[in-house]
């Protein structure tokens, strides 16, 4: 039965062999890996494969159903595109890390049990952090380190949840979990960290813009989408997700408006888009889950495309801050065009891919709001509409405008290399293809679809929404109210561990360490003086008693001094006559006897 190969292994083992190839063969080999993986995928029948007994655990390494298949397809497609995109970098570390990362994502989505899911989940972190470190700048190093810390923590939370879940239920199956006890919450939050929920999100906006040019494209596709997949698998219809998703869709757009680093703007809009997916999973109806998955599929393509176009800008100009860029449409017309396709897709313009998927989630929210007890979904719908207008504003207009149009920065560079243009071209083609002809995408969604995006009303209303958002942008810009881009950094919730954590550390360092030294000196002083006291305490007490006797007996001056010295030395050195020692002991016993 299992003549097939595990998709994850094709990528991971295939990736590890890359350094052994040279020149043209390497290019061909790398492109063949995702192609071979895709063909392999087409031939795997539905159901569980690669069943492994591991102690008392029953592991399922390959679970194929419609949900995992959908994510598998898009992961293969984006790997293929990204590989083309990074062909000119000639950096084996990046190639290998990219394949391991993509392989880990494939492993996680096909895992049929929680344990193997966790193993691949952790591998994701390793692959991705390599892609960040491969940039080799100081900023990338420290951002990568913070990224690693956050994900190591998230992994631990998830692992604790899985262990507790297993001890309680005795099962590792990837089935729906309801939020009831600690184990379910731990798994929920472990996944939530990778999903970039509000407040848990800053690892994403911190690290993604610091990764290598191709690394960011890889990163934008896998970590958050694997988390979306995991939520769709384990927590569909969990109401908390609706409100978490609403937060994700809403807050990043404010940051995106004032952010200067254009890849960071895209990172914020990535969270915003994942918010739509999380809302869909939270609503949990067939239409909503379909919408979430379709939007994940499209987002991987258009977000990848946008990151690729910004990567091309960095590659040619070495700059990415909006303050340094502008007017590049003259030197990079193709990149400009592809970027605009990505921008139109993320903004959900009719005939572009976002249009056919985002509206499914909104439709599901609207339908839900008419049901009894779900009236609050109206707010969800309104916030999502607000976020739709906002995303056009920052990702749809701001990105192309500040990079390629706007004020002319005077930069005159070459057009992006051919392989980058081909990669962007494929992604752009798919964005338009899906937008114009969504049927193939709908046919691979988890549930049967009866959804028609191209009603006159939908097209007209969406166009109105977008054009008037653009009108707002234009008028604000002409009036000089639009916030000018400034060289600045905007603190986010990573402030908690980057600044507050550091400040706390320094405060503790300044307060607790001197306190520690002070306490230590007191203890030392008490201990040493006690020791000094007890060193000759016996001798001193005896002297005190004896001197009074001697004074009574008439000893004075020199003789008294001699007697004192002799007694003191005798007691310290233990050279008292045995009789005296015995007498003292007996006296002591008698005293005790009398007094008690």
């Amino acid at each position, binding site marked *: 039965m299992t003549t097939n190969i595990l998709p994850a292994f094709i990528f991971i083992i295939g990736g590890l062999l890359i350094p052994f190839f040279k020149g043209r063969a390497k290019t061909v080999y790398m492109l063949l890996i995702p192609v071979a993986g895709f063909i392999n995928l087409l031939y795997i029948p539905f159901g569980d494969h690669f069943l492994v007994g591991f102690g008392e655990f029953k592991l399922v390494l390959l679970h194929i159903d419609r949900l995992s298949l959908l994510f598998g397809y898009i992961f293969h497609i984006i790997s293929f595109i990204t590989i083309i995109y990074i062909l000119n970098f000639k950096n084996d570390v990046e190639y290998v890390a990219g394949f391991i990362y993509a392989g880990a994502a494939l492993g996680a989505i096909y895992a049929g049990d929680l344990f193997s899911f966790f193993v691949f989940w952790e591998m994701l972190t390793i692959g991705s952090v390599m892609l960040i470190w491969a940039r080799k700048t100081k900023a990338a190093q420290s951002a990568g380190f913070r990224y690693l810390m956050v994900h190591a923590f998230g992994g631990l939370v998830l692992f604790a949840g899985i262990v507790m879940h297993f001890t309680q239920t005795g099962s590792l199956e990837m089935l729906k979990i309801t939020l009831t006890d600690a184990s379910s919450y731990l798994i929920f939050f472990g996944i939530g960290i990778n999903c970039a929920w509000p407040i848990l999100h800053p690892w994403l906006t911190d690290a993604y813009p610091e990764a290598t040019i191709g690394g960011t494209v890889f990163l934008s596709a896998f970590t958050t989408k694997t988390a979306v997949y995991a939520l769709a698998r384990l927590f569909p219809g969990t109401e908390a997700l609706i409100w978490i998703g609403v937060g994700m869709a809403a807050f990043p757009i404010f940051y995106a408006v*004032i952010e200067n680093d254009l890849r960071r703007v895209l990172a914020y809009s990535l969270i915003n888009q994942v918010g739509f997916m999380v809302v869909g999973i939270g609503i949990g109806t067939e239409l909503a889950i379909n919408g979430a998955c379709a939007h994940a599929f499209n987002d991987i393509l258009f977000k990848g495309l946008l990151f690729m176009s910004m990567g091309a800008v960095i590659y040619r100009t070495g700059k990415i801050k909006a303050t340094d860029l502008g007017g590049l449409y003259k030197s990079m017309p193709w990149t400009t065009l592809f970027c605009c396709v990505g921008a139109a897709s993320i903004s959900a313009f009719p005939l572009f891919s976002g249009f056919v998927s985002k509206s499914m989630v909104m439709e599901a929210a609207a339908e839900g709001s008419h049901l009894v007890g779900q009236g609050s979904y109206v707010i969800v719908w309104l916030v999502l*509409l607000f976020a739709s*207008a*906002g995303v056009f504003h920052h990702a749809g207009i701001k990105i192309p405008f500040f990079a390629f149009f706007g004020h002319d920065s005077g930069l005159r560079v070459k057009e992006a290399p051919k392989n980058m243009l081909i990669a962007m071209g494929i992604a752009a083609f798919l964005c338009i293809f899906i937008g114009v002809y969504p049927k193939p995408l709908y046919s691979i969604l988890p549930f049967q679809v009866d959804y028609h995006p191209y009603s006159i009303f939908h097209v007209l209303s969406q166009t109105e929404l977008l054009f008037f*958002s653009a*009108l*707002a942008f234009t008028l604000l810009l002409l009036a000089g109210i639009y916030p000018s881009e*400034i060289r600045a*950094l905007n603190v986010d919730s990573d402030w908690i561990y980057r600044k507050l954590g550091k400040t706390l550390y320094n405060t503790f360092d300044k307060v607790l360490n001197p306190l520690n030294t002070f306490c230590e000196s007191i203890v030392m002083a008490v201990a040493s003086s006690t020791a000094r006291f007890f060193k000759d305490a016996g001798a001193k007490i005896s002297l005190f008693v004896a001197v009074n006797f001697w004074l009574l007996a008439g000893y004075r001056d020199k003789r008294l001094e001699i007697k004192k010295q002799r007694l003191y030395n005798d007691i310290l050195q233990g050279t008292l006559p045995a009789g005296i020692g015995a007498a003292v002991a007996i006296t002591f016993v008698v005293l005790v006897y009398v007094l008690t």
Partner: protein
Amino acid sequence: MFDDPQNVKRLLKIFFSSVIFLLILDIVYIFLSNAHVIHRHVNYKWEEFWGFYAFFGFVACVILVLVSKYVLRPLVKRKEDYYDN
């Protein structure tokens, strides 16, 4: 292409007229759907108002920009080397 202010002006003119055109189209649409020439599927009453989406998009973006500029930025803006020392 956009170095010539004439071209920018022309582009803006096209844009402003298409915005107005959309609002006119909306009137036509409302008229036709009220006459039951086209079937209209809405989830909420307010979606039927003339220019609801236009108004929402415009106001949403103005609020977004104003809040970002006057509330969020003063709160979170720091020097670029804020975390370095």
